[in-house]
Each structure stands twice: as C-alpha cells, then as structure tokens.
C-alpha cells in the first residue's frame, strides 16, 4: 500500500466504515509505518470524535457509578462519608443542660470515677517501663515486616500494571477476532445462498436443455416427413402434368383416333391411338396386355406405318402391374403418311426396326 492510498482510506477508517481486505491492508501499513501514520490518524480522529457531539444531551443514573465502583473494588466514591455517618442522629428529648450535667458527672460516684483513670495510668506506666525493652524489639520487628510488605506491594503493583496492559491488548484482539468471525459468518451465509441460487439455475438449465433436445428431435422428424411428402407431391405433380397433357391431347378437336387390337385375336389386349397430324404428336393407350416393366429389360415400342413403307419407330413405354399403360408417340423420322399404328415388345431402350411380334395393331 502507498501512503497516498492510506490517506484516501483514512477518512473511512476513522469512522469505522472500512472492512475486508482494505481494513486489513491499512492496519498492516499503519503497524509498519507507525510514526509516519499516527499524527495523520490523530488529526482525522479528532474530527470523527466530534461527530459524537451530535448525540442529544443525556445523563446516566447515579447508580451507574456505584456499580462501576463496586466492580473495581471501591465500594463508594472517594471522599464520600460512610453511609452510617450520613445517617442523622436522633434528636434527644432531654434539655441540653441535663445532658451536659450527665457528661460532667456529680456526687461521690463521680468523684471515685474521676480518680480511677489516674490510678490506672500510674499502674500502666510502671508496667510499660518494665516492658520497654521488649517493646523496642517488637517495634523493630514490625518495622522490618512493614518494609518487606511495602516491597511486596510495589512488586504487586508493577505486576498488576503489566497484567492490565496484557488484558487490554487481549480485549482488543478478542473484539477484532469476534468482528472478523461475524463478517466471516455473513460471508458464509451469503456464499450458501449464492450456491443454492446456482443449483436452482443449473436445474432450470438442465430442464431447458432437455426440452430443447425434444423440440429439435420433433423438428427433425417433421423435416423428414416434409421431405417425403415433397417427393410424393412432386411425383403426383408429374403424374398430374402427364394426365393434363393426355387430357389436352384427347380434347383436341383435330385429334384422330384409331382402335387397336390383337391381330391374332388370342388375347384381350386392346388399345387406342390418338394422333394430331398438324402438331405431329399423339399417344397410344394400352390395356389388358401382359405387363411389361422396365425392370424386365424390355419395353413396348410404338410403330407408325405408311402403306408398304417400313415401320417408323414412334416411341417407347411400359405398363403398370395390371397391363395398362400410356405411350407417348414421338416419331424418330419424317413419314409421308400414317395409315396404321402397331405395338411390339422389344429390348429395353427400343430398336430402329421391329424385332418382336405385334401385340396390338389398328388402322
């Protein structure tokens, strides 16, 4: 700690507002720099002490000093007359003249008692004279004992002073330890409260985390479901587009239709060919034929025939499991006219000239 820091903390120190590390550091600095600090502390302490004057005037009860006197072993105020001495003597009912006469005495009895003290004194004097030597010895012993007692008393005072100093230091230390213990207790209580708050917050955080995980899981499932439905919707849209194309073609007033059938009449397979000669587009719808799937490595192929010219490949396709299918007619080259449409079963991908047998044909 610097002396500047000491000076900054001093106004707070003298009114007892410092605490914790600041108080500890300041007191340590003061202990290490006692001579330099004491004058400055005393200067501010005078200011702090004057704040005490703000207390409204009040006086303690007289019993307080009596208790203090009892505690320090005095029993009463110095100079104060003993309690018995302060009690007023009862007033006599007899006249003062009578009392005076009684004190002075009268008659024969009084005469005898007036000579008794003189006689006793004479006897005592003889006795004292004879015991004078012994008395001097005893007096010497008494003086010696008194000196020894005074020496012991002096040592006792010195030890008592040391003891009171140590008691004072001990009392101050005890006060400081008690204050610090109280502050420590307060800190412990505050720490426990904060630990409890922290635990509560942690528990709440765990619950929130669990909730968040559940929500993320649900969101993931919904996203997967959405993706599946998007794929299905796209497939349906494609099918709708195809059906719309078929419907547009079928509804075209310029369309020409040819019925197709098994040339040998051995199967129930039937079909219809729709052809728009201006746009050169069309389709062939087949039903009740043996199913032809792409997975079989085969396909249905449409052929356009003009008179005795070789058939022209006009598109490929497949049926569903029940033998129904729609084949787009796409001419692979120009043709002078179209008299007939035929359908054959060919290798996957189609062939330029028919290799399989005709399963449907129509004019």
């Amino acid at each position, binding site marked *: 700690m610097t002396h500047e820091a000491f000076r*900054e903390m001093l*106004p*707070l120190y*003298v*009114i*007892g*507002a*410092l*605490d*914790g590390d600041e108080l500890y550091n300041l007191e340590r600095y003061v202990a290490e720099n006692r001579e330099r600090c*004491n004058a400055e*502390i*005393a*200067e*501010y*302490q*005078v*200011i*702090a*002490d*004057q*704040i*005490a*004057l*703000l*207390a*409204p*005037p*009040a*006086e*303690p*009860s007289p*019993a*307080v*000093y009596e*208790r*203090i006197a009892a*505690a*320090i072993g*005095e029993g009463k*105020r*110095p*100079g104060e007359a003993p309690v018995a001495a302060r009690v007023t003597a009862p007033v006599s009912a007899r006249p003062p003249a009578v009392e005076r006469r009684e004190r002075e005495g009268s008659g024969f009895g009084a005469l005898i008692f007036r000579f008794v003290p003189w006689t006793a004194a004479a006897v005592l004097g003889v006795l004292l004279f004879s015991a004078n030597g012994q008395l001097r010895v005893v007096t010497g012993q008494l003086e010696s004992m008194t000196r020894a007692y005074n020496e012991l008393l002096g040592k006792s*005072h010195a030890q008592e*002073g040391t003891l*009171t*100093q140590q*008691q*004072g*230091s001990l*009392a101050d230390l005890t*006060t400081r330890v*008690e204050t610090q213990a*109280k502050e420590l207790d307060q800190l412990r209580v505050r720490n426990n409260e904060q630990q409890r708050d922290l635990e509560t917050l942690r528990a709440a955080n765990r619950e929130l985390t669990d909730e968040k995980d559940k929500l993320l899981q649900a969101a993931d499932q919904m996203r997967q479901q959405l993706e599946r439905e998007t794929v299905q919707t796209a497939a349906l849209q494609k099918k709708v587009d195809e059906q719309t194309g078929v419907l547009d073609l079928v509804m075209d007033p310029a369309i020409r239709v040819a019925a197709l059938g098994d040339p040998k009449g051995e199967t129930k397979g039937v079909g219809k060919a729709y052809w728009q000669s201006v746009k050169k587009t069309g389709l062939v719808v087949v039903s009740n034929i043996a199913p032809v799937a792409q997975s079989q490595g085969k396909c249905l192929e449409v052929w356009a025939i003009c008179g005795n010219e070789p058939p022209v490949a006009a598109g490929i396709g497949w049926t569903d499991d029940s033998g129904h299918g729609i084949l787009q007619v796409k001419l692979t080259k120009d043709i002078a006219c179209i008299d007939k449409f035929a359908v054959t079963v060919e290798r996957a991908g189609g062939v330029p000239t028919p290799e399989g047998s005709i399963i449907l044909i129509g004019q």
Partner: protein
Amino acid sequence: MPDGQSRVNTSGGETTDDRELLRAVAARDREAFQELYDRHSGMLFALALKILSDRAEAEDVLQDAFVQAWKTAGSFDEGRGKPLGWFIMLIRSRAIDHLRSRKTRTRLSESVAKDGAAGGSAVTPTDEALASEAQRTVRNALNALPPEQRVPIEMAYFGGLTQFEIAQQLSQPLGTVKTRIRTGMIHLREQLGGGAAGRRERTP
C-alpha cells in the same frame, strides 16, 4: 456531575488534565478515576444512547467501558490520540457490538437515513437549549453537508455499518459511497479541524 461545559469536551483545554488524570488512574488513583467519570460520563452516555436508543443498555456500555478503562489505563498510548478519543472508542466499539448482537442495525440505519432525508439529525428544542456552542458548531458543519454525504457518515458512525453494508442499504455503488464519505469527511475537517476544538480551548 459534569456540567454543560465539561460534557462537550473532545479535546482542547482540559486534554492535558485528562492525560494527567489517566496517568493517575493507571497508578490506581480512585479520585482521578472519579474526576474523569464526572467530566465525561454525560457525553459518553449520550453517545451510547444515540447508538443504542435504550437507556439500560447504554448504561451497561458506560459501566463496561469505565471498568475496562480502570483495568487498562496503563496501556493507553498517548502518541495515538487524546484520552477522550480513547474513551469514545471504548464506548463506540461496545455499543456497536451490542447493536449487532440484537440485530437492529437495519432499524437504526433506516432511522438515520430517514433523519438524513428530513434534512439532518432530529433535534428537539430541549436538546438545542442544552447544546453547547461546540455542539452547535459540529451540528451546523454536519448539516451543511449534502444529505448524500452526511447520511453514509452517520450510518457508519452511529450505526456501525461498513461501507459495503451502507452501499447495500442505500442501493448505491460501493465506489460512490466511498467517494461521498471521503468528500464529506474532508469538508468536516476543513470546517472543524482546529475550529471547534480551537474554540473550545479558548472557552473559559
């Protein structure tokens, strides 16, 4: 018992006497002890009563402090201040310990804060009549401070609260409380340092 003049002394003309008296107390002089008691018990009791607001407790504190002074007068370090400052320290530390033990600091500090909001320490006409010039000087100097400086000083001095506790009770940052106490004490020092004490020294 102490008269009005002697009860308001915190330093000055009688300080030299106080030191001699305390030395005599250290040598077990009971008359010196009684003289110190008669001179300062009123002011010290008033301080204890201000802190504790309870006569019986304040008298206990006064008794405890004087018994302690009797026992430890020999340990008084004259280099660190004046005897009355030492007595004030004995009274304050014990009164504040009592206060903490009965856990009414909040009530007292609220009372101090209320006094501060009302414009200063509550003083009755009787108090004013009994107050000495030195008391009025100190009271004027303290009341001249802005409430935000005076209130934390009184909370610390009479309530025994630390700067941290004051900041909590006033809901103010710790640094602000420190600055206000320091500024207020510096102003008091300018007003009272050698002022009220000096006047008391000149007062017959």
